[in-house]
């Protein structure tokens, strides 16, 4: 038997993500942010965008106005939405041990829209993006609360089903069914509304980052930041869950508490984003896979910060495409994320061949 080495000779690897990749990602997010602010129906030169961002202002009042009150809130919303949806998807994929889990797939976003619809119905408003914009700060909190509760309600139902069914595919089908029921409830209510409201609702379901006013943005960023903090705090719990619930318990993890934590933060983040921007698909499911394949790990200490960056970058990219630079029209953000997200998911599956093993 070979001589056992001294303890000092054993070198432990580092757990942090690769620094070069991290810096590159941060740079990409920043570049995309500038592009998002500069491009659009009105083209604003990059150095002007820089000046406005750094507080030097601009000679052109119109550009200043466009950036400060329209494009910056929209870009911020894009970043928040990207981060929030990615982290929700990541946590759900780990919690359910299912590579296809995500806020839109398992009906969390549908639950959020149900919550919003119920508030509108109860307070006599209709779900229109116009009505959403008319709400003041109190209204924003109301919407966040409603959409979060709606998300949490669906999450708890799906969670309850997952306790009885251990088959991932069956759980997925149940999640999709619950999402469909939720959407149907909202649709029936829409059916009894006037044609304008139906049109408005359809616009809402397309998803929009620009409907978010600065006031909404404040509320949304508070809610999303809370969710992000919770997610970061639970990264070591999530790692334990990767080994399965029995192992996690044997290592002293209070699994029930962690589940509650994940439900709360996911519902808060996905609920807040969906409440204000409408359902945005595919980011939640695509970004965690993308991050896993870029950084080649499932370790949440790496995945959580990196999913934030990848999510923000992807969402900014989608927004740049959505505003069709140089043209007067805009594409619905939901179709753009699906257009970009679906190929990403397919690419990841093809590249990894075995999603389960990579996951």
């Amino acid at each position: 038997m070979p001589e056992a080495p001294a303890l000092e000779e054993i070198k432990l690897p580092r757990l942090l993500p690769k620094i070069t990749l991290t810096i590159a990602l941060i740079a990409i997010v920043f570049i995309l942010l500038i592009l998002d602010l500069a491009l659009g129906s009105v083209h604003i030169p990059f150095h002007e965008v820089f000046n406005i961002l750094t507080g030097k202002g601009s000679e052109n009042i119109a550009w200043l106005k466009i950036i400060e009150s329209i494009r910056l809130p929209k870009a911020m919303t894009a970043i928040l939405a990207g981060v929030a949806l990615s982290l929700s998807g990541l946590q759900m994929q780990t919690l359910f041990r299912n590579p296809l889990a995500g806020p839109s797939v398992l009906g969390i976003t549908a639950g959020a829209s149900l919550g919003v619809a119920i508030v509108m119905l109860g307070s006599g408003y209709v779900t229109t993006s116009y009505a959403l914009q008319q709400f003041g700060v109190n209204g924003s909190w109301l919407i966040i609360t409603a959409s979060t509760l709606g998300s949490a309600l669906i999450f708890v139902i799906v969670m309850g089903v997952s306790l009885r069914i251990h088959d991932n595919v069956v759980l997925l089908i149940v999640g999709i069914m619950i999402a469909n029921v939720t959407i149907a409830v909202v649709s029936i209510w829409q059916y009894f509304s006037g044609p304008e409201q139906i049109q408005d609702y359809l616009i809402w379901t397309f998803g929009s980052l620009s409907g978010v006013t600065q006031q909404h943005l404040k509320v949304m960023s508070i809610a999303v930041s809370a969710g992000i903090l919770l997610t970061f705090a639970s990264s070591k719990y999530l790692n334990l869950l990767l080994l399965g619930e029995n192992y996690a318990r044997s290592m002293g993890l209070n699994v029930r508490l962690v589940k509650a934590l994940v439900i709360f933060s996911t519902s808060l983040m996905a609920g807040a984003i969906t409440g204000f921007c409408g359902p945005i698909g595919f980011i939640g499911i695509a970004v965690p896979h993308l991050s896993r394949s870029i950084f080649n790990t499932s370790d949440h200490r790496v995945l959580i910060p990196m999913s934030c960056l990848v999510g923000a970058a992807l969402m900014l990219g989608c927004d740049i495409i959505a505003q069709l630079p140089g043209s007067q029209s805009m594409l619905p953000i939901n179709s753009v994320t699906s257009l970009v997200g679906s190929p990403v998911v397919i690419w990841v599956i093809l590249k990894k061949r075995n999603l389960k093993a990579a996951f």
Partner: protein
Amino acid sequence: MINNSHTIKEKDFKNHGNESHVTPLVRTHDLAIGYRRKKQHKIVARHIDIALHPGELVCLLGPNGSGKSTLMRTLAGIQPSLSGEVHLKNHPIKAYNQKRLSKELSLVLTERQQTGNLSVYSILTLGRYPYLNWLGQLQEKDKNIIKWAIRETGIAPFINSHIDKLSDGEKQKVMIARALIQETPVIILDEPTAHLDLPNRIGIIRLLKKMARDTGKAILLSTHELDLALQAADAIWLIMPDQSLTTGVPEDLVLNGTFASAFRKEGLQFDDQTGSFKFHEWDGKKTVALHGGKATRIWTVRALEREGYAIASKGDFNIVIRENGADTIWHIEYEDRAYEFSLLEHVIQFLRHPEHREIAENNSIYSTKTLAWEKI
């Protein structure tokens, strides 16, 4: 007989000298295990009195479905008992919360890892979870324990690899290292040798044995490897067909016939000479008389048994083994002929078709009429 062996064993423990004064880490009294289903109790095993001492490697044996996993889960506090209590360090296990329990008892489970994309080192760091602050940072002490476990389990070459790139044996070593890193006085392993090839099985058991001896940990593992358990275990817990549990030192359990009775129901014959199950059942017809032979004898017997023969003092054939240094010669008399073979293969060929004289003569290094042979 079962009760008898049980009392013998209890007395043995008390006569053990120093060890008997060490308080057991895990102890049960009249424990019944099983499942609660709609207010109905499905009892898997009952009247379980066991004690797991520091420094002991204990193997839990029993046929499939006999409740090995249930017992382990109950001892680990994952599953409630039906009656009786599990005591961990003299406190009922129910009194421990998850966090405290994780510092006393660690698990290595059978469920195959689905976590494809975690590096070995990431998994090892998870073992320190019970001791980490809320930030989850590893201190120098944590890192030293991780290094120690890496060295003891010999997994240093692949701590940077991803777990799904490892072989089953390497994976198992990683999970054992993770349990060692959890720094618990008790480690419970559910079939750690399943899915492994023989060298890996021996390697794992040897590692566990060494850990129990060197660190004073109490290690309980369930296994199907009867001969490995007989060789390595300080004590064996055997789940009997009547749902009771018999414990004892392996050799005692062999000598008092506990093994034989435990597996009789399964139609298996336990051979207390070899410590394993008899593979070949004798149909009660063919016999052979075997004379001489030392080292060669046991292998000759195996070959003959595989051919369906039993060894008797008077048989259908008369075989004499003559060992001459490294060479062995088998003499066989049949009818008026006598043959000498240098390979068991030829002996077997002859036994199958003793009437084919030509083949026998071709294979034999020497053959003659019986009369001539008697002269030699």
